[in-house]
């Protein structure tokens, strides 16, 4: 599966990351190698594996009981722009 800079740029856009052309090229090469390595998964026989077989995880639910987070002021203390109890961002155009 060929990985060229177009694919890298598309993936970067999905991940909200930006790369220079040089970086993108380097990435493309690395990816190529890494993905080729991942192809060793194809050598394994996976036909008998049950995808939805019950896992280690036991179902767990919580009750519909109110739990108020008491440190309201600190909850938003890491926000850069917090005014009148709103978080401010540059205008979002729909």
């Amino acid at each position, binding site marked *: 599966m060929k990985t060229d800079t177009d694919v890298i740029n598309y993936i970067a856009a999905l991940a909200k990351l930006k790369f220079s052309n040089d970086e993108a090229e380097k990435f493309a090469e690395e990816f190529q190698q890494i993905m080729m390595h991942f192809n060793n998964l194809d050598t394994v026989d996976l036909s008998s594996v049950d995808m*939805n077989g019950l896992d280690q995880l036991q179902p767990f639910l919580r009750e519909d009981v109110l739990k108020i987070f008491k440190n309201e002021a600190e909850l938003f203390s890491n926000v850069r722009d917090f005014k009148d109890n709103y978080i401010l961002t540059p205008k979002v155009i729909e």
Partner: protein
Amino acid sequence: MAMETVIGLEIHVELNTKTKIFCGCSTEFGAKANTNTCPICTGLPGTLPVLNREAVNLAIIAGKALNCQINTLNKFDRKNYFYPDSPKAYQISQFDLPICEHGYVDINVAGANKRINILRIHMEEDAGKLIHVEGKPVTLIDYNRTGVPLIEIVTEPDMRTPKEAIDFLVALKAILEYSEVSDCKMEQGSLRCDANISMRPFGQEALNTKVEIKNLNSFKEILKALEKEEVRQKELYDFKEAYKIKQETRKWDSAKGRTVPMRSKEDAHDYRYFPEPDLPPVVIKESTLDAIEKKIPEMPEEKKKRFERQYKLNEKEIDVLISKKMIAQYFEEVVSHEVSPKEASNWIVGEVMRILKESDRIEIPGKYLANLIRMIDMGKISRSAAKDVFDTLWLTDKTPEEIVEEKQLIQMSGADELEKVIFEVIEQNPDAVEAYKNGKEQSKGFLMGQIMKATNGQANPKFAMEILLKKLSQMERGERD
């Protein structure tokens, strides 16, 4: 070329839980911005979701009320996309194994039953609210709504006219409201609807390009928007410019009265769904399903049939009474205090519905309304006086008896008192009496007027008329009592 319209709907419904789907924050509407929040629903690093049992229960109830099959093993997935109203940059939703599938709602189209099929219902978390500030390059984010439990109901593209879509929504809303799954208030956002509409030649099985319409804030807007879009698409087909119909999302602009293309957010909506590793699968036991089945309240259809049988009212009346569960319950409460169903229905369909337009709750205890109706039956007050009492009952805590007393609305119904007055009136108006004897019917009215005047309007007209006529006929026979 005869074209048919194909409509499918995606409805988001906020579930009636006390707390959010993955944390213990309140779901109450109208709180000050960012006060129903905690590290979990604001997506702080290190936090984890834990599923609210009640959300699952309500989703099951919704599924059953909508005739769906419940997937007793279902799971959550992450839907990945960047948008400021989504603090984790992924929404926890259900992708390939939703909680309910393959249901339906029956509606009435031109006298016949039509089944609108529901493809699936899944649980997911709501996003926050973005508030745009006019004239400033700033958007405000409020995370109160983030994490409120939602179910998304997706229909098959079974609707063929905008009206059918509305009829479906009305029926759906009634069912959800009745099952107490949600309060379904579009104005508060607890019910939201996006519509998908396309057109194709009659007889063609394949679907043509569909357009998604968003920003529909009321049933009226949905109807208008679908009608407008139907027209737009039809014109393009008629002028052989169908290629201009793109698969896109259009926004309904109610001010302009038309749909406009939305600015596309990301090139591809590659949501990269994968199973949510922080949540175990949802396993619903048979015993849970049975217990929930028993708890499902009477649905609109059932109630309608029962009202027909039990109260013998006509369809139009019943439709109003069952339009909201609260109204149906109220009706039955009033009737339980021994007044006739017909009377109760008249008052509710008339006066209660009139005032309910402005208000949310019925402010008169059923017992009070029942007592008021009884007072009319017994002739204690006139019907018009009762309407006055009704308005006051709505606004105060007083009993009908108290209000009638205060306003001195008790009709004179007692035979003795009335007789006395009527006797006097007859004595004082010999000409009118003479005229009546000679066949002038209007004099009767004149005499009634005099009786009402003499009693300050408090005479019970029915009784007064009875007594007057008796007296007059007695006089005719030349007797006096």
